[in-house]
């Protein structure tokens, strides 16, 4: 079956948002979303790595299937993602110090972000072709950034309100995420087409 690119994009960005509906990339979502100005670079860096990982995974999957070595798929994905992140980091450091300063500190964190491996695994499971995979990765990253920004905005507002001591911390973040997730459920059905 072939899903249209626009339907993949809208679906992955909103209705099946990586963070709020598929629970991918929750650790940075809860950890880095306290402030608005770090949320955007973090989201951008993750999106970038997700796209790179998706391209690598696409090539690898072809290779692995070609040689009938499906049992090496997972291990090769994780190795290639870790190496890709390292290479990107070195490349940026050498060629674009400005960009490196903006994204650098987030790159190592991203290697163990489940959203990155998630992109690779889900695009394989859904048998996306090259363009579909690329759209999926971009929309996934954009969705991650969107969720991060919304959450950071909410949490900055919370700094100005009195919160009972019992509720403070992760419990409150989770409740907020739940409300956001509930709101995003309203997007379900978008792109279902007619």
């Amino acid at each position: 079956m072939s899903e249209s690119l626009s339907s993949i994009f809208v679906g992955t960005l909103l209705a099946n948002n990586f963070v709020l509906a598929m629970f991918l990339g929750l650790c940075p979502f809860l950890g880095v979303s306290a402030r608005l100005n770090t949320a955007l670079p973090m989201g951008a860096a993750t999106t970038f790595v997700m796209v790179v990982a998706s391209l690598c995974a696409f090539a690898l999957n072809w290779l692995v299937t070609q040689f009938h070595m499906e049992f090496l798929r997972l291990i090769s994905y994780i190795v290639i993602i870790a190496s890709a992140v390292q290479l990107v980091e070195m490349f940026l450091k050498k060629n674009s110090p400005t960009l490196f300063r903006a994204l650098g500190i987030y790159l190592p964190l991203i290697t163990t972000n489940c959203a990155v491996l998630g992109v690779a695994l889900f695009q394989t499971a859904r048998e996306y072709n090259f363009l579909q995979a690329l759209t999926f990765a971009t929309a996934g990253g954009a969705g991650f950034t969107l969720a991060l920004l919304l959450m950071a905005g909410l949490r900055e507002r919370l700094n100005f309100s009195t919160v009972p001591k019992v509720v403070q911390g992760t419990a409150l973040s989770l409740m907020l995420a739940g409300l956001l997730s509930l709101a995003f459920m309203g997007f379900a059905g978008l792109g279902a087409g007619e």
Partner: protein
Amino acid sequence: MSDAPAPITPSAAMIRTLALVATICGILIVSAYQGTFDAVQANKKLALERAVFKVIPGAARVSEFWASPAGLQPAAGAASEGGVKLYAAYDPTGALKGIAAEGAAKGYADVVRVMYAYDPAKQAVTGLGVVSMRETPGIGDKIYTDQAFLKNFEALDVKLAADGKALAHAVKVVKHGTKQNPWEIDAIAGATVTTKAVGRGINESAQRLLPLLAPHLDTLKEGK
């Protein structure tokens, strides 16, 4: 730690360790793959049979085929370009009992995958099963619990047009309670998006599969 001011490990030692670890890992993965291969294949076959037998009651054996413009091929080979997978089900005497195929379309939350049974004699869809879906529980799952909805698939007309290139009437989902023709599906009130996905999935799959299948029905009947 014993190696407090440890000097930099020589590359040879690093490579040796990594090679050792890689060897251990390789052996573990390959033995797990080999060790579970038969059980996994048996499980997959069982799951497929269960899914097919559910939409084609009375069947006892399933064979997989790829239908493509080049003809029918047993599914053992690689997927052929532009091919559609189909499952031929036979009863205990070896006679062709029906054909099952999968259809998929975007539903409310995510893609809805269904399996439908096609009866070549009646030229109709005669059964529906759900392969996977993530629709809202209590609403979307009516597509396999709502008996009135499942009645639509007791004889859903998918006759081929005279030129044999497409269905005579596209399968269509109509508003609840307005079904008039045998090729229409009566939607479930309140779960329209999901039911429409089922209709679109079947239509898309049948439009591709049935024209390819029609010239080769006799091959299937011989039960090869």
